[in-house]
């Protein structure tokens, strides 16, 4: 048993830190540090820097333009990127790339992967539907063969960044007679195909990241299907089994703790400071301690994975606890503003420019981030679904 990383990994970590300090643009760092959405053009500007450095797709194999980082190094990298307040990697990198690499045709890999790496395509994920949220396998969007095409009809919802996307990877039903999981296929759809209509969904934070996507007689070439017909569920699930790490968001939460402590020790409250309140202080320290426990748990699970143990309920545990801690910290951040938690400032990036010059500068972003963050326990499999998953694995009842 040993807590320290090896010297090679420590050198690697320093290399990352130096790169991030030098190359991450200040304006992008600033938005991330405040928990604000980074715009598409800024995101691409950052991704091009990563691409030039060869670090665009740490989770891909090196022959496809990924890295030869070990599992430990990938963990360290994810942590350092988050600690430096760099934007998170996008769907193309995290979700689609691994599926294409595992199941895509040679042509698909040759065409799409380099375009993802070079930020030539922005991808969105067309999974959820009005009747298929937690029960994703209940999806109804229909794809019917018509010659060399599929004719796709249906509706997707909660589609993040569909309005920025060039393409969508999409789960569709190709066999309505089969069991729900058996009749699903995985299609790659160009967003400029006729018949696609995008309607914005304005979120609690008054921002626009979510969308409805309506598909009416959308023609998708059969060659845009990934893998076999009716096997799409397997491909979508493949990712869930692979993605163990990086769901805990420890580094992001550590950043929230630092912000919170800074604000609470600077914020006057009557004769003293907010941190002078024993109750407030205690709530901060309990969350800080929970976060410490989460971080060691993440490391312990990483060490199990390095040992070659198969993935079990660990990602669900990390997701549940990580999202709860994030929400707890974001709520305390709002509370740290006192009455300045009242004015609501739309984020100029997603809505019209409306930065309000009231209250301390540190309030900028906090309420929006808190509202947006209520989704952390809902998306990616709600925490209730995660508990069902753990229960199925460990209780088997």
């Amino acid at each position: 048993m040993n807590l320290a990383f090896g010297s090679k990994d420590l050198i690697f970590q320093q290399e990352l830190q130096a790169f991030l300090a030098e190359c991450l643009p200040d304006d992008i760092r600033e938005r991330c540090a405040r928990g604000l959405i980074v715009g598409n053009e800024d995101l691409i500007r950052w991704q091009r820097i990563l691409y030039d450095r060869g670090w665009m797709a740490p989770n891909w194999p090196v022959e496809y333009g990924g890295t030869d980082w070990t599992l430990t190094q990938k963990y360290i990298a994810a942590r350092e990127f988050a600690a430096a307040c760099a934007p998170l990697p996008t769907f193309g990198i995290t979700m689609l790339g691994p599926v294409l690499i595992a199941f895509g045709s040679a042509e698909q890999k040759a065409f799409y992967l380099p375009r993802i790496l070079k930020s030539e395509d922005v991808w969105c994920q067309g999974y959820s539907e009005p009747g298929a949220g937690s029960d994703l396998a209940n999806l109804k969007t229909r794809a019917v063969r018509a010659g060399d095409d599929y004719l796709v009809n249906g509706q997707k919802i909660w589609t993040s960044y569909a309005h920025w996307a060039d393409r969508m990877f999409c789960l569709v039903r190709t066999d309505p007679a089969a069991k729900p999981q058996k009749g699903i296929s995985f299609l790659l759809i160009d967003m400029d195909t006729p018949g696609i209509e995008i309607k914005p969904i304005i979120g609690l934070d008054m921002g626009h990241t979510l969308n409805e996507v309506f598909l009416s007689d959308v023609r998708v070439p059969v060659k845009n299907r990934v893998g076999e017909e009716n096997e799409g569920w397997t491909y979508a699930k493949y990712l869930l089994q692979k993605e163990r790490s990086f769901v805990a968001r420890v580094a992001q939460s550590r950043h929230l703790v630092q912000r919170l402590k800074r604000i609470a020790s600077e914020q006057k409250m009557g004769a003293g400071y907010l941190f002078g309140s024993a109750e407030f202080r205690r709530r901060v320290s309990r969350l800080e301690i929970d976060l410490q426990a989460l971080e060691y748990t993440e490391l312990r699970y990483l060490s199990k994975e390095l040992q070659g143990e198969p993935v079990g309920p660990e990602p669900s545990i990390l997701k549940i606890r990580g999202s709860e801690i994030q929400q707890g910290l974001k709520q305390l951040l709002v509370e740290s503003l006192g009455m300045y938690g009242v004015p609501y400032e739309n984020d100029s990036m997603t809505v019209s420019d409306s930065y309000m010059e009231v209250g301390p500068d540190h309030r900028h972003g906090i309420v929006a981030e808190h509202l947006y963050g209520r989704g952390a326990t809902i998306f990616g499999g709600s925490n209730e679904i995660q508990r069902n998953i753990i229960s199925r694995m460990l209780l088997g009842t």
Partner: protein
Amino acid sequence: MDFNLTEEQSMLRDSVERFVADHYQNTDRAALVYSDLGYSAEHWRLFAEMGWLALPFAEQHGGFGGTPVDTAILMETLGRGLVLEPYLSTVVLAGGLVALAGSEVQQADIIPQIIAGDLTLALAYLEPASGFDPSHVATTARSDGDGFLLNGYKCVVYQGPSADRFILSARTEKGVSLFVLEQGLPGLCRKDFKTLDGQWASDLSLEDVSVGPEALLGGEGLALPALEQVLGRAVSAVCAEAVGSMAAANEITRDYIRVREQFGVAIGSFQALQHRWVDMHIEAELAKSMSDALAMRLRDGDEDVPAMVHATKVTVGRAAQIVGQGAVQLHGGIGMTDDYAIGHYYKRLSIIDLLFGNQDYHATRYEALEPAQ
């Protein structure tokens, strides 16, 4: 970075597991609980034979030079079986203090006897008005010729009735000091009682207890740093014990809700119960990570280890309550009985939340160490 056990550590765990299986899972723990000793002298002999009593001590005294990680592995496995033998009192606490603060003569006298299984000790450091704070000591030790005269009162001394000797904190004119006292000294009066978790403990009153200079353990007035350090290791040891107890309690509960039927189905098929069990499991997982990490950081002598001691005790204390209470709840009526094992896990786990300071105490001390930003 590696949380996995080495081969040697696995062997240690396996040997303790075998002991628990042979001597706790198939025998009558209640008989030991209600015996005069409160544990088994025969088991203690086995502890000595297996070398566990030698584990943390230096090789020069016949020990194995083990680390807090080894102690944690042993304690975690003992915790699975709710083992009653006084390892914590004798080896971790008293033995730890002698090894850390004792003179050559005291070490050479006491440690080999502990290792041989011939000597048990108990630590008397708390008083009715001290809360959990080891520095609050009203018991006095007045110079008296070469030696000292002790007066005062110590409370809830685990293993008080059975220990051969006490290590006791008292204030001299130079500050808090430690003394080794034999059982039965004139003026040393014991009030014995059973504890909630089925052990024996005592309150001690001291009235002009006279001891020689050799009773002083370590430098006069220098007890607190040693006491804090050993209490930190004791926190690690009980946290590991709790991790073992929580794992066992969760397994017992899992097995029960899988087979207990109501409304014609196993109660484990109900989502409310499933989710409560999952939350118990998550608490136990986080506690395990903190406990393992604390043991490693104690071993490595990290500078900021005191904050980690407090953070771990807070985490494990909460987990112990959630798991213990949840286990009783998910069992329903049978969880309320003395006959069934789960209630005993609940009792020990709730005591561990208190031992060496509860969550409030450790959170307060954590805050004192963590700067605002």
